[in-house]
């Protein structure tokens, strides 16, 4: 399968790989996917007192498109407020990375990871959990 240049770039030089301390109150962690489905993403955000995401890290077990989707997501998250981050739509990832139809689920998973991480952060900080739309894949 032919990958887009951007997917290859993120795969070759993934941004923000790593781990944040999930015990910290201002760190939200989203672990989504399943090993037997071939994709597991872990996305983490660190949020400051102004609700701004100051750091984002990921680790992904999956194909090149899954790695690129999560790598791109961390780039986009940094500097955004939590509310702005909630607005990130998987189709924006599809467009940016030129994902083919069979790889759209990778972008969906990245969106799920963002929302799950935000929810984790919210719950830790006494905010009500947001209802996540059911994954459509």
């Amino acid at each position: 399968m032919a990958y887009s240049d951007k997917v290859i770039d993120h795969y070759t030089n993934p941004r923000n790989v790593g781990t944040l301390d999930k015990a910290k109150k201002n760190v939200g962690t989203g672990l989504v996917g399943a090993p037997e489905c071939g994709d597991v993403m872990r996305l983490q955000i660190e949020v400051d007192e102004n609700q701004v995401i100051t750091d984002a890290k990921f680790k992904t077990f999956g194909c090149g498109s899954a790695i690129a989707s999560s790598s791109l997501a961390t780039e986009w998250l940094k500097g955004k407020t939590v509310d702005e981050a909630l607005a990130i739509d998987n189709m924006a990832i599809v467009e940016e990375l030129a994902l083919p139809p069979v790889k759209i689920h990778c972008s969906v998973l990245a969106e799920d990871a963002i929302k799950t991480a935000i929810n984790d952060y919210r719950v830790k900080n006494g905010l009500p959990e947001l209802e996540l739309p059911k994954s459509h894949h």
Partner: protein
Amino acid sequence: MLTLPIYLDNNATTPLDPRVLDAMMPYMTNMFGNAASRNHPFGWQAEEAVDYAREQIASLINCSPKEIIFTSGATESDNLAIKGVFEMYASKGNHIITVTTEHKAVLDTCKHIEKLGGKVTYLKVDDKGLIDLKELEEAITDKTILISVMYANNEIGVIQPIREISAIAKKRGILFFTDATQAVGKIPVDVEADGIDLMAFSGHKMYGPKGVGALYVRRKNPRVKVTAQMDGGGHERGMRSGTLNVPGIVGLGKAAEVARQDMEADTKRIAAMRDRLERELLTIEESYVNGSTEHRLPHVSNISFKYVEGEGLMMGVKDIAVSSGSACTSASLEPSYVLKALGLSDDLAHSSLRFGLSRFTTEEEIDFAIDHVKQAVAKLRDLSPLWEMFKEGIDLNSIEWAEH
């Protein structure tokens, strides 16, 4: 000098040996006759060339030249053998025994037989990829007409106990067919000593051309016949009509001759390289060989790397051409049914690579492949949350994964 990518997918197809190409060339140019033309030298030349190829092949597998039926390849040979026996021996029974790890050309043909009202038993394999002979004996009924077990598996290279299987078949008066596509030309295959009644093989897996193969059909003890699956001019003793692919057949013949001459030396060299590749790759933590290493082709190694995803791994090893146990052509991942049959979990099946060496593989290429795979696995594990959890001692089965 290394030319990238390095070809290590010789179970899919092999390059044409230059000696084979040289033998074929005249039959693609001035010696273009139809082997069935009996009235002029063009036809005689072609027929002579075909007869010579039959002899070259016969001496590789120890049969009579008359027992070779030329086809378009192993898939056609598999179809002809199984469907041909099913039709020819319909009065004797309708039951066929085969194995879950066979090639699709056998499995799908058997599915077709089931649609026609035949009965098929699919034997399971153990975690090494080998069948249980007792299970085979128990599966035999008075309606069994054919046992179809591949000589060596295309994904893991595991060699089945062919002589034991044929002995069982003979004792019960059942025909034994083997798809030997991966074995012929690579390891000694002797239809007499092995007790084979029908055998499929192909040119392009043994440094010959694509589009040509053969079916060995025993003529004595017992005399075996198959019903033709194509109607036409009655070529190949009436079992396979169609103008003979003379250059292809000449190529298959030459490939057989070269294999017979070079097999011993080739095997020694290739097996040493394969063993070194495997030994080195197994120094990677959590890596496993799939299938028996004791009963195995000398040029194949199938290894799984845990906590690495198959498609990502394929992307990471782009400078070597190998096969993966994962067919990710659609949104749903399909792990290899052969590896699943060995009892591998989906994730291990997905993260496997099949290495197939050839007589043209060099030590330098193996050095490169070792480094390349090691780097790719290390890189992907650095990226893998599963690897991190494994390293922290977290049992991945204890996590409630959101199935998606």
